[in-house]
């Protein structure tokens, strides 16, 4: 293979100029792919140590609430996205007891499709968000920790708490190049049946390659304030921070 062809690799992250062994991939390229896939698989299937996570949230000075979805197993979570959007009955009953509190923001955390992402970036992100929110006078509900949740779970939780805004941090579907991305979704006036057009998303939180914790938290703070001020979220709420950051 010519040197200039190998040099094309600088232009893209795509797996180009891999060489060949006969018709097939060279061994190094083959094993490199297998390793990336193995990391992505592990991200989906390793369990999330939610008790330890709750302890770390409490160490930040926040209350943590452990809830469950209607999902019975990781296998069922993958097959039945509808169940990952619902709380189980016990969790819903517990939330109803908190409903009397006047809540601006319900912050929810789930491993989603990547436990690796939540284990690696969850606590520093929560810390950055907490620090950002505590500069304002938002009334925060206890941080809800829920394994096997989907984005729309925030509708069920936010609705049960009668929160003005629901924010859910979720492990994104792992790719070969990134198995540890977190996404953040914000919904104003959350209630079951909200469509994705009613949400704002901050994706690829994954420093150092992706978005950093403080930058994500600043963006979320901006979106939260705008959502509360305008009384809406989703496509009508622009997340252009450039002017705001000055």
């Amino acid at each position, binding site marked *: 293979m010519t040197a200039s062809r190998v040099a094309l690799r600088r232009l893209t992250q795509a797996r180009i100029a891999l060489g060949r062994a006969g018709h097939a991939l060279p061994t190094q390229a083959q094993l490199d792919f297998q390793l990336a896939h193995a990391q*992505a698989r592990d991200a989906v299937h390793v369990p999330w140590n939610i008790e330890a996570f709750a302890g770390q949230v409490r160490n930040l000075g926040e209350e943590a609430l452990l809830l469950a979805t209607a999902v019975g197993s990781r296998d069922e979570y993958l097959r039945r996205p509808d169940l990952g959007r619902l709380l189980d009955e016990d969790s819903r009953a517990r939330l109803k007891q908190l409903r009397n509190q006047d809540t601006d923001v319900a912050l929810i955390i789930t491993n989603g499709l990547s436990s690796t992402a939540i284990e690696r970036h969850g606590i520093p992100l929560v810390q950055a968000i907490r620090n950002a929110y505590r500069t304002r006078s938002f009334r925060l509900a206890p941080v809800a920790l829920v394994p096997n949740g989907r984005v729309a779970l925030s509708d069920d939780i936010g609705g049960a708490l009668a929160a003005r805004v629901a924010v859910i941090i979720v492990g994104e579907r792992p790719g070969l190049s990134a198995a540890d991305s977190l996404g953040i979704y914000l919904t104003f006036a959350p209630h079951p049946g909200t469509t994705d057009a009613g949400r704002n998303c901050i994706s690829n939180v994954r420093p150092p390659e992706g978005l950093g914790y403080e930058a994500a938290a600043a963006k979320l703070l901006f979106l939260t304030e705008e959502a509360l001020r305008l009384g809406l979220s989703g496509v009508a709420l622009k997340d252009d921070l450039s002017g705001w950051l000055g």
Partner: protein
Amino acid sequence: MAFTRTFKGRSYGFGDLKTLLAKASPRRSADELAGIAAASEEERAVAQWVLADLPLTTFLMDPLIPPEEDEVSRLIEMSHDRMAFAPISSFTVGEFREWLLSEVTAYADIAAIRTGITPEMAAAVSKIMRNQDLIAAARRCSVTTRFRNTLGLPGRLSTRLQPNHPTDDPRGIAASLLDGLLYGSGDAVIGINPATDSPKNVERLLHLLDEVIRRHEIPTQSCVLAHVTTTLELIHRSVPVDLVFQSIAGTEAANRSFGINLALLAEAHDAARSLKRGNLGENLMYFETGQGSALSANAHHGIDAQTCEARAYGVARAFSPLLVNTVVGFIGPEYLFDGKQIIRAGLEDHFSGKLLGLPMGCDVCYTNHAEADQNDMDGLLTLLAVAGCTYIMGVPGADDIMLAYQSTSFHDALYLRRVLGLRPAPEFEEWLNRVGIFDGRNALSQGNPSPKLLRAIQELSDGTP
């Protein structure tokens, strides 16, 4: 119409035709998610039995969605060819399976009844076929299409070169594109999934592809897989559009969720034909489909995923496409759970499409939350190649960095050429040999490609225009 069968003293009832089709479907998570799958393996097997005994004419008398409610059903009803149907009109579904596999049935006999088969008949017969039946029967259906080359000839396997980039960076795309060409990929189409669907961006990419194809005189066609309305706008502005792409589904409501209807597809088809850019033929639509799309749009009318998919082929064939691609494992494990389900679906789609007369390719693919890996893809890839699949994808290292899923690589196509002797489209093969990429024996050349190609690589890596 209701259907019942008693088996060992236990009575099974199927309330209507779509329920019977759903219960007779080989297991997949999409139908379970929709709540229409068989409750037990025995119920599934009994449903298949009942289905096998149904006369094919049942599907003409008992539409799954009333035609007055759904334009896809109207299209299927109106385009049914009674003359072509005549030779098989007395068959049950089970007899139809046997006729498709019989050594007495000639290839030409199968081609002759194409327009007499409705998508529902194709779906029904596939449900009582094993994987080997789907392979053997599809192999007997030859479908040839032309734009700047000839696709689908027996003994040939083509590839879509897919040089995607997460930000549509032209140099990043060009690097993957050149790399793919140098591995012999790209005769079905050089097709980019744009990260952004804006007309300006799509126009820029179309010019890039057009320049590469003209500069190197490659007998192939380009496509940027934008929404049909974007492509239509660009055609009106005289941007070089070879193929019109669109994702399609098998119900009017699902197509509405894609922002399309049949009239819009017809308008785009006519507009692209008026450009007369194909020197060998007029097939210029490129459709993508996939089991589960109607369900995900909540527009499946209680019809199983595979039958909805076959109905999408009913839409496709109204527009004489150059290429149809079932993107089989893309949508996730809630639709096709594991390698076994993905392989089955890929073979069903390829068979059903070919039986209906479509140039079927397959994006043999999976996501990381599905129970599948590259070994499952090797299996499906090989099975489809044996079945005579028209084309597969060529993605650098099988890793699409824009769409974040795994497909098939340039190397995978070379593997099939090696083990099965499958050649690219004849015009493209001649070009590969002429520019020194292939060695004249259907394999990569040991030497360097032509000076013109080397210069293009040098310029791109140096950053000169």
